[in-house]
């Protein structure tokens, strides 16, 4: 009986994994190729009248979200608002990194199913069903990390980010650098987006918070990559486990090349867990110095944004 259940679950997982790339490939087929070509073909535009900030920060959330609009946890929003206030730069969120189109799971063809899952998640925290959200989004992280599918995926996601930037006055050729702040699987997506944005002439750096990421080609493009690692964060270990390009023996991987070039900085975030109580964004749990985890995170990210302004552009 247990064998049957495991077999059915394994088979279902295999089917889901096989279907996972079809979403971004379908988007590419229908309109992605045309919209990508249009974006590259668009001439540089003069900046809008109002003064642009010295930097834009774009936040890409972890795998637990259903869409980019009202689904970001309150504590993450609070931290982002504080980072924006203290660093004096706009922090753009509201992007759903686990789909190439501009709407999250609550507006797609399976919206009814995902709404039901979201309802169960809000009512019964102990239920297993909400893990379906994580599973679905983790599969999209694997799609993005796969060199066969990653490019089309990033083309779609980067256009979401580009649209968001443009809505805040960003214009091609304006020279304002962009820092992508990626939490968990969002770090992988940040690397891929930076790959695309640099082709549009944008200077990019990435800050990873408990990031799960591969030896993405984005490492060849970012000016600098900071990785905040919590001592109690075991989820982030999925990155070095699942992606052989992160292993030291793969000396030619983009990850190892970037490390040797001094473009990667690994930071100890203290005894911090990946999510839940004691996580990076926790507004109540205190670190050894009496500050909350959220306060430590905000201070660290604000400091890194100052460091980012001192990083020389890539030639």
């Amino acid at each position, binding site marked *: 009986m247990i064998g049957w259940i495991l077999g059915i679950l394994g088979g279902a997982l295999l089917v889901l994994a096989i279907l996972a790339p079809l979403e971004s*490939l379908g988007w*590419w087929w229908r309109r992605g190729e045309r919209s*990508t*070509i249009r974006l*590259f*073909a668009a001439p540089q535009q003069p900046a809008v009248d109002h003064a642009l900030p010295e930097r834009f920060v774009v936040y890409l959330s972890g795998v637990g979200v259903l869409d980019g609009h009202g689904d970001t946890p309150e504590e993450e929003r609070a931290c982002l608002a504080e980072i924006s206030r203290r660093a004096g730069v706009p922090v753009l969120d509201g992007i759903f990194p686990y789909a190439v189109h501009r709407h999250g799971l609550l507006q797609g063809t399976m919206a009814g199913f995902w709404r039901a899952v979201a309802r169960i998640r809000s009512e019964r925290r102990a239920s297993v069903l909400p893990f379906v959200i994580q599973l679905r989004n983790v599969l999209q992280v*694997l*799609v993005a990390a796969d060199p066969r*599918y990653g490019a*089309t995926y990033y083309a779609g996601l980067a256009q979401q980010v580009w649209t968001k930037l443009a809505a805040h006055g960003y214009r091609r050729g304006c020279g304002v650098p962009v820092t992508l702040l990626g939490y968990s699987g969002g770090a992988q997506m940040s690397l891929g987006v930076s790959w695309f944005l640099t082709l549009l002439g944008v200077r990019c750096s990435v800050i990873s918070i408990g990031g799960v990421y591969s030896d993405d080609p984005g490492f060849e493009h970012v000016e600098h990559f900071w990785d905040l690692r919590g001592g109690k964060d075991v989820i982030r270990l999925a990155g070095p486990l699942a992606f052989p390009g992160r292993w030291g023996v793969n000396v030619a991987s983009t990850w190892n090349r970037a490390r040797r070039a001094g473009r990667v900085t690994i930071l100890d975030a203290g005894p911090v867990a990946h999510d839940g109580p004691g996580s990076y964004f926790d507004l109540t749990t205190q670190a050894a110095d009496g500050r909350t985890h959220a306060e430590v995170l905000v201070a660290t990210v604000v400091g890194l944004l100052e460091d980012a302004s001192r990083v020389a552009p890539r030639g």
Partner: protein
Amino acid sequence: MGEWWASVRRVLGYALSLDPEAATRLPTEPPVAAALGILAITVGSIGIGHLGVLVLNRVTGRHICGAFVLGIVVMAGARALSAVGLWAIASLVTDAPVRLGTVFWLVVVALAPQVFGAFTVVPHAGLFLGRVLQAWELLILFVGVQVLYDVSRWRSALIVGLAFAASQIAIRLLAAPGRALVSALWTRASGRPMFVTARDLLSGAPVVPVEADAERGAS
């Protein structure tokens, strides 16, 4: 048809289970029909595994058939080259008078693990699976060489290892002209102006900048 399918299944079974029977009858009764069946199944399966590339290149309708036929031709050509390399190295290491044609059919039968090639479509894990299938192919060759040349495990491993190394060197040497040839053939088979891989997409060439430049120039 039923008999042919049964022979395909039988040869596949022998090959996948590393049964020496897969190679025993090759010199006297080469399973040509079964081997061609394996070749067709593997190309179809690998074709599904390369779904991303097909979609990226917007290959549809009759062009899929063209791409399928091209796949068979390219794979058969590549395997013929592998067979020549394996046969030449084995002839140098041993004195056994094995014909080139026999080694060719062994190489085709050794494609058997690629019937699972469709599963390489799975994101990320599919790449690892592809390596596993390749290693499985080498194991079938290892068993086959042992039987055909009547050599020890070590000598068989040496022959297959050398042949694999030679094929890797040849692939690198022939990469540029081979890519140009396949690209030209692909253009005819798929109807797309060029063969584009996912990595090409954002590497600065060829699909986005080329077409973008053309569009900009036209406007």
